[in-house]
């Protein structure tokens, strides 16, 4: 069933509108750039890009699969815990004397298993993903603690950890960010240009109709959750390398930040709408703001406040504009109220028979 929520559900955005969304985020980014360089002349430097983007790498990675999942009108809140579990494993196995070359694949495998477990509960048992992943969020974090407990493994060799924070030679792009770039392109193509991607949108917009059209709804969701698990585990590996130490409590609370990034990217939480580009832009925006405020010596609590306010404003803005247009349209020569009207009413019509 579609996760439409109450009266407030926004009218469906059409392609043109999505474009407008990305434009909006882009403007905000430009704004941030101006603000940032105003606050500190350290802002618009290669170093700052390297530092900030490296800090965002894990969030950014996890945002990619989550984007696809949210477009199918599901959600995965367990990613941050999988990240922690993967880091814990990495530490434990390293202590146990495994070679990194074996540890990393194993961590990814465990990530896949975690994702698969989510998937089974959601598609086979038919539980709502929100509930399931709140549960596994707790459980996987618990596993992480069981594996590594309070220990912190830190004797990873420099030869590996450097890939966590150093730049690709001759660029200002840290290795994790480069990896993100590659994956982002892959995800974008898959989502926007392939059968798989089209079916993802169809599922999000109307799961039942998709199923009646021969779309393998369950299979697709399973794939997505497994991928999400793998990428989360990968993020765990990267974080471990970046911070040169493995910990069970890495990424605590990231889940909501990732969701925020995805939503800010213009992905409808009800599914069926959104784009990878939007999410990438949103990630840039979040990173930019953080760095600008931090460099500007503005205390961290304000970063929190601004993030939240931004999230609201970005979605609220367009809605209010639309409201205004409708209002004007009605008072003014009514004949022309059409476009906004159609946006306003049709979806409601749909929602009426939604159940």
């Amino acid at each position, binding site marked *: 069933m579609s996760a439409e929520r109450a009266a407030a559900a926004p009218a*469906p955005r*059409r*392609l043109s509108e999505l474009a407008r969304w990305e434009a909006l985020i882009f403007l905000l980014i430009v704004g941030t750039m101006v603000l940032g360089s105003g606050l500190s002349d350290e802002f618009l430097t290669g170093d700052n890009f390297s530092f900030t983007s490296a800090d965002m790498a894990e969030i950014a990675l996890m945002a990619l699969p989550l984007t696809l999942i949210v477009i199918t009108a599901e959600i995965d809140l367990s990613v941050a815990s999988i990240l922690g579990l993967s880091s814990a494993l990495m530490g434990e196995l390293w202590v146990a004397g495994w070679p990194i070359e074996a540890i990393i694949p194993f961590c990814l495998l465990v990530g896949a298993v975690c994702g698969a477990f989510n998937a089974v509960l959601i598609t086979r048992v038919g539980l709502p993903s929100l509930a399931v992943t709140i549960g596994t969020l707790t459980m996987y974090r618990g596993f992480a603690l069981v594996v590594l407990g309070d220990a912190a493994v830190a004797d990873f060799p420099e030869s590996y950890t450097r890939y966590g924070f150093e730049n690709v030679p001759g660029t200002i792009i840290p290795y994790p960010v480069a990896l993100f770039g590659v994956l982002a392109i892959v995800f974008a*193509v898959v989502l926007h*240009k*392939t*059968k798989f991607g*089209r*079916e993802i*949108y*169809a599922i999000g*917009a*109307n799961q*039942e*109709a*998709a*199923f*009646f*059209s*021969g*779309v*393998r709804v369950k299979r697709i969701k399973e794939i997505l959750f497994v991928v999400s698990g793998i990428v989360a585990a990968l993020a765990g590996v990267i974080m471990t390398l970046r911070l040169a130490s493995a910990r069970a409590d890495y990424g605590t609370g990231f889940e909501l930040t990732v969701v925020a990034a995805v939503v800010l990217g213009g992905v409808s939480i009800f599914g*069926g*709408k959104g784009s990878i580009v939007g999410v990438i832009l949103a990630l840039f925006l979040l990173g930019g703001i953080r760095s600008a405020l931090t460099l500007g010596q503005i205390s961290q609590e304000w970063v929190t406040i601004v993030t939240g306010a931004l999230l609201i404003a970005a979605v609220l803005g367009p809605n209010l504009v639309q409201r205004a247009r409708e209002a004007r349209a*009605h008072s003014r020569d*009514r*004949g022309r*109220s*059409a*476009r906004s*009207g*159609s946006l306003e*009413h*049709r*979806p409601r*019509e*749909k929602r*009426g*028979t*939604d*159940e």
Partner: protein
Amino acid sequence: MSEPSARSEAEAKPVIALRGASKAYGAVQALRDVSLGLTPGEVRALIGENGAGKSTLVRMLAGVERPDSGEVLLDGEPITFSSPHDARDAGVAVIYQEPTLFPDLSVAENVFMGRHPVRSGRRIDRGALRKEVAELLRRLGVPLDPDDPVRGLSIADQQIVEIAKALSFDARVLIMDEPTAALSGHEVERLFNVVRTLRDRGVAVLFISHRLEEVFEICTTVTVMRDGEVVWDGTTAEVTADDLVRRMVGRDLGALFPKQDTEIGEPVLEVSRLTREGVFVDVSFEVRAGEIVALAGLVGSGRSEVARAIFGIDKPDAGHVTVAGKRLRPGSPTAAMRAGIGFVPEDRRQQGLVMDLSIERNATLTRLGALARLGVIGRGAEQRLASEWAERLRIRFHRLTDPVAYLSGGNQQKVVLAKWLATDPKVLIVDEPTRGIDVGTKAEVHRLLSELAARGLAVLMISSELPEVLAMADRILVMHEGRLIRELPGRGTTEETVMQAATGRIAEAAITAADEGPADGLGKEGQ
């Protein structure tokens, strides 16, 4: 009885009216300067092709939307309904075209939501609630329990609840947008009896339907719409069905059901001993190339469930399906599609289409695999496929990239057909293909189906409209309470025979059948 008096005051003043109302949706001009009035004791039919603007007009009177220009008059006074709430307070009761129920709540609460009878301290009086609803349901003659949750009711039962809801506030105006689309003959009868009593009590009724015989049975006056305009307004006495049809479609129609004889080939679809606990039992039959087989039966007899099981939506508990000799993996629509089955489901808006996606995306959803080059889908190919089918089915749309939600019921149904015909299937299953579709479009759908049959397609058609069944089908399979109890020839079978079988009175049915020979023999007569 009170009819004449009602009439006379009718001339006096319309209780509710629309004057010069226009409404546009984007580029679509849904209503153009429409005027219409309802007087007490009048039962007025509103007919028109799909997309003529009937439901839009309803939404104006119901306060769901406000006209862009023009006005709503209540007792001759201009009034603006800012919400359905206002309209309701003004005594306007509406049955919308699409059921608007609360699946999680009981039938009783659905009927009285927001108006529960209350006792001291404005607390809800559940006893009274149950009694009133039970009474309403009795008047409609359906054995629904007021405490049933609505989730799980068949579409027909849901429609009944809608009607009960509309009757529950004794309104001065009752507006019904295609209330009978999902109902069987008997329920329609009951509904009409209720409507008559309301009319005699001086209630003004607006009745929308695509079934003209119903219009003549219950309505005194008729308004015909075409392309958002009122093109004719008069009494049922002064016109014939054909006149109305001509006025609706603006042209003469040939025979409505042009099923041409075709060369019947080898069995393509074979269903054997298919069973799904609690819904249908031991269903076996075959459909041959070039043949149209109809599944007849009463609403709730399990026809859709059979269709769903064949296509793999539901997993059968026993039995199996073979297509062109190959056994299907049960419970897998993908397998069914690969084997060459197409399925136009019963519930267009929920199962047939993805309302938010564009016409184009919907039409190509079943063909993505084929459209992809090296896994990547080309815009051009997609467009070409979509526009080709839009053309062939004469779909009326503004832009292929508009959400399919903007189309009217009939045109939406065509998109569903397009999406399946695009897969070039061997077997096409259509469940209520013409439900809520106007005569014009209906004729086109029928023409299409028989054309396809002529080209060797095997068609399994589920329909609750006996005339359609009788005219289209080579063979008629009758279901009763989940069992396939009878096979009848398409030709020379009367509605009565089908009805008798459908209502399970095999005894008599068998006798009539006896002098027609063995059932399967009859099947061949279709050729």
